C-alpha cells in the first residue's frame, strides 16, 4: 500500500469532515428560531404562566451559551471546539454537557443496533443466498421473497403495529422504554434480562424492515456469481451442494455485503431515530430528535459531528483494506 495513497486518503477525509462540519454549523442557523426563548417559553406555557423578567432570563441564557456573539465568531469557536472534541453544554439539558448526554445515550443505541445489524446481516445474507440458489427449497425461492414486502414498510410503522398488537393488546412485551419504569439501572442479571426484554420489539422493528435490503443485495450477487466459470467447473467436478454453495458461491458473493456491513456500522451511532422515538428508547436517535425539535445547536453539532467522523473513518478504513481483501482491486490501477 503506497504511503502517498494513505496520505491522500487522509487529507480527503479531513476535507470531507471539515466541509460536513461547516454545513453542520450553518444549517441549524438558517432558521430564525431562538432555541433558548422557545425552551423557556415552552416551560412557561405548560404552566400557563409567563413570569415577568422572562426576557431578562432569555438574554442571560444567550450570553451563557455565546449566542450573543457574531456568527463568524461562533463559527470559529465551534470549529476550535470540534477539533478538540469539546462539545460544550447542551441548551435543552443544561447544565449537562453534550458529551455527558451523548455518553449516556450512545451505549443504548450501540447495544441495540449493533446486535440488530449483525443478526439482520446474517439472516438477510443467508436468506438472499438461498433465494438465489437454484437448488434451495421451494420456500426460500417462492415464499420468502413475498415476505420481504415488510421491508418496504417504514420501520416506525412496523414499530407502531408491534406496539399495538404485541405490547398493548396481547401484553406480551413492554410498551416501550429501555427497562421497566420502576427499575433503577444497575448491572444485576435481572436488570440485564429486563433490558433484553425491552429491546425485543425495537430490534424486531428494525430487523423486519432491513433484512430485505441485505437479502436482495446478496441475491443479486449470488445470481452473478452462479454464472461464473468456476461454478460451472465445480459442478462439473461433482462437488457437493453445500460446498458449492458456501465455499464457492456465498464466499465470493459476500464481499459487497461486508462493505455494506462496515458502512452500516458507521451509521449505528446516529441511531434509528424514529424507532427510538416511538419506543421511547433512550439512545442517540431519541437525543437527536429532541435536539432537532428544540433546536439544541450544540447537541445537534455534537451528534452529527460524531456521525461525520465515524463515517469518514469507516470510509477511510474501507479504502485502505479493500484491496487487501480482494487482490483483484489495486491502489494505483496497475
Amino acid at each position, binding site marked *: 500500500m503506497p504511503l502517498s495513497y494513505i496520505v491522500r486518503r487522509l487529507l480527503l477525509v479531513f476535507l470531507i469532515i471539515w466541509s460536513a462540519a461547516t454545513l453542520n454549523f450553518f444549517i441549524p442557523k438558517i432558521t430564525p428560531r431562538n432555541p433558548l426563548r422557545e425552551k423557556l417559553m415552552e416551560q412557561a406555557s405548560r*404552566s400557563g404562566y409567563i413570569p*415577568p423578567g422572562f426576557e431578562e432570563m432569555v438574554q*442571560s441564557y444567550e450570553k451563557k451559551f455565546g449566542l450573543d456573539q457574531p456568527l463568524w465568531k461562533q463559527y470559529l469557536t465551534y470549529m476550535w471546539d470540534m477539533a478538540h472534541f469539546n462539545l460544550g453544554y447542551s441548551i*435543552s439539558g443544561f447544565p*449537562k454537557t453534550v458529551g455527558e448526554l451523548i455518553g449516556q445515550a450512545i451505549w443504548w443505541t450501540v447495544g441495540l443496533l449493533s446486535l440488530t445489524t449483525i443478526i439482520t446481516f446474517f439472516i438477510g445474507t443467508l436468506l438472499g443466498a438461498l433465494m438465489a440458489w437454484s437448488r434451495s427449497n421451494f420456500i426460500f425461492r417462492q415464499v420468502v421473497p413475498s415476505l420481504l414486502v415488510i421491508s418496504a414498510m417504514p420501520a416506525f410503522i412496523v414499530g407502531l403495529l408491534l*406496539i399495538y398488537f404485541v405490547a*398493548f393488546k396481547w401484553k406480551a412485551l413492554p410498551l416501550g422504554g429501555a427497562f421497566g*419504569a420502576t427499575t*433503577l439501572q444497575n448491572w444485576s442479571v435481572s436488570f440485564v434480562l429486563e433490558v433484553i426484554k425491552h429491546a425485543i420489539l425495537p430490534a424486531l422493528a428494525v430487523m423486519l424492515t432491513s433484512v430485505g435490503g441485505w437479502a436482495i443485495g446478496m441475491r443479486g450477487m449470488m445470481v452473478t456469481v452462479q454464472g461464473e466459470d468456476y461454478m460451472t467447473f465445480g459442478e462439473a467436478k461433482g462437488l457437493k451442494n453445500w460446498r458449492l454453495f458456501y465455499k464457492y458461491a456465498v464466499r465470493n458473493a459476500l464481499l459487497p455485503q461486508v462493505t455494506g456491513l462496515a458502512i452500516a456500522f458507521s451509521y449505528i451511532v446516529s441511531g434509528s431515530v424514529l424507532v427510538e422515538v416511538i419506543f421511547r428508547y433512550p439512545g442517540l436517535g*431519541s437525543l437527536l430528535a429532541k435536539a432537532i425539535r428544540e433546536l439544541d445547536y450544540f447537541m445537534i453539532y455534537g451528534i452529527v459531528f460524531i456521525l461525520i467522523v465515524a463515517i469518514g473513518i469507516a470510509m477511510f478504513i474501507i479504502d485502505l483494506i479493500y484491496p487487501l481483501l480482494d487482490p483483484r482491486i489495486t491502489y494505483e490501477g496497475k
Partner: protein
Amino acid sequence: MRDANLNRRDFLRLSGLASAGVVLAACGTPPAPGSDAAAPAADAGASAVVTDTTATTAAVAVKDVPREKTLIIMFGGSQGQFIDVGLGNPYATGASHQMGNAALWEPLYYYSAFADEYIPWLAESYEYNADYTELTIKTRSGAEWSDGTPFSANDVAFTINMLITNGLDPDAAKIRNSTEVSKWVKAATAVDDTTAKLVFNDPRPRFMFSHLSSKFDTGIYIVPEHIYKDVEDVSAYTGFDPAAGLPVGTGPYTIAAWTPQQKFIDRRDEWWALKTGFVAELPAVERILVLPTADETTMAQMVINNEVDSSLSLLATTIKQVVEQNDKIITHTGRDLPFGYIDWWPTSFWFNCAEGAFADKNVRWAVSYTIDRQQMLDVALEGSGILTTLPFPQYAGLEPFFEAAKPLLEKYNTAEHNLEKAAERMALAGYEKDGEGFWVKDGARIEDIIGGWGVFADIGPVLGEQLRQGGFALDFQMPADHGTQISEGKEHIWLNGHGGSINDPFDTLDMFTSKYYQPIGTPTTYNSRFQNAEYDAVLEEMAKVPSDDPAYMDLYLQALEIFLDELPDCPVQQFLHRIPYNQTYWTGWPTQDDPYVNGAFWHLTFPLILQHLKPAA
C-alpha cells in the same frame, strides 16, 4: 530497494498490534467523570443502587418500594427524557416544580380555587396595614427543613430579599419572580423567629395571594436561608446531592434518585407536620415515581395498562377511549362527560393589536361573530367542552364578576355567532368580499396562520375552517417556534390560554395593559400589544384596591367595558384538564364529588392531593 507498499501480511500484523494496544489502553483508563460506575449497596436493606448521572452526586442506596405504595405519574421532559435532571434548586434556570418537586416545597398558604379556600401551611396568619404598604406574616412554629434546621421567619425574609437583590442587579441572570418582587417590595425583615414583615413601594393588597400563596403554578418558593446564603449565583446553583441531603425542603418527600428517564421521590418519615400534630398521619404514598411525558397514544396505553396512575391531560377524544377501555379509570367528572375540570387557562383568540388586519377592533369583533363556538364544541370535542364569554376561569371566586358582567355582555355579546354582524363589522373596517368569498381590502385578503400549541390540535383546525368559510383566509398551524413568534409579534392571531385570574379578574385584565407593549420584533411577556391609556389608568387604580372593596367592582366594570368594546382577546372556551386517574392502586383523587383541589399533580398544590390519596386495596 525495500518496497514502500504495505502488503497484506504486514497490514494484518499492524492491525493486530494496534487492536491489542487499544485494549490495553482501555483497561488502564480511569472512568470519565459522570460515567456509570456502580458502587456496592450501602446497607443490607437496599436492593438497588443508583448509578451516578452527574459528576457531583455520589451513589446512594435507594430502598425497595412495592408498586402498591408507589404513585406513578407522567409529566414533563422532552422526547422521553427529563431535561432538568439534577436541578434541585427551584430557582435554577430551567428548573421546574411540575415534575414532582412540588412535593418538596411547601408554601406559606395553599389556595384551592374550587373551594375558594385558603389553607394556612407554613404561615399561621397575615395582616396588612391600613394602606396595604406593609404585610406582616406569622410563620408556624415547629416547622422544620428536611435537614432538621427549624423553619422560621428568617427564611421568608431571606427569600424575599434574595429576589429583590437578584431583580435589582443588572448583571444577574434573572430568577423566577425577582423582577416584579424587586419593583414592588422595598425590603423584608424577620422581626422575630415567627414574624416576617414586608414593606412595599406602593400599596399591594394582592401580594399575599398572588405571590405568597401556592395555587396552580404561581407562588414564591421559600428557600432555606442556612443553605442559600452561601450561594453566589442562584440561577446556576443546582442544589442537588442526595448523599448530602440536597435539595432541602420542608415537605414530606425527598428526591432519592433522578435519571433522564425516571425521578424517584421518596417519603421521609421525619416530616415536621407529623411531629407537631399538624397532620394526623403521613401521606400513604411512599414513593412518587415521575416519568417523562410520552406521546398522547403511548400515555393513554400506559394508563389503560395500569403502568401509570395519572398523566398529563389528554385530548377530549382520547380520554373518552381511555375511560371506556379500563373501568378503573376516572376523571374529575367520574366516567362521564366532560371528563375534566375547568383549568385556570381559558382559551381565547389572541390578536396582535399593533400590526396587520387584527389591529382594527372591527376585524377582531368580526372574528368573534364568525366563529360558531357550539359547533366547535360538538365537532372538535364531541360535546365535552364548556364555552366561555369572558377570559376568566369559571371559579367560585370569579362568579360574582361573571354575574356583574351580564349587562355588558348583552351589549357586547362574545358568545354570539352572527355572520351578518360580522359582515357589518368588516364593512366598517373597509373590507368587502371577493369573488371567492374572502374579505379583501386594498386588493389584499386577510391571509395568515392561526398559531397554537399542541393542546389546541383539536379545536384549532375546526375554528380555522369556520373562519375560512367566513371569509378569512386563515389556516391553523402549530409552528415549532410559536412561542418566539408570538413574543416578537410576528403572529397576528393565535389561540392561547391566560394563566392569570383565579379569584379576581385583575391578573388577566392586567395582561392587556400597555406596560407589556413592545415594538414588533422586540419580545414581550404578554403579547397582545394592546394600548389604551384609559384602560391602563383603570387597571392602575384596581391594583391598589383590595378585591372585596366595593370600588373594586366599579373599576372592574369600567375596565371590562373598554376591554369588550376593543376586544383585544376573543374568548372561546374554558380549558378543561382531562386528566385520567387510574384507581387500580390509588383512590382519593379530586373529583367533582370531592373537589378539594384541582387535580393537576404538576401544580404547586400537588401535596394536597398526596395527603388525600389512599391505597385502593
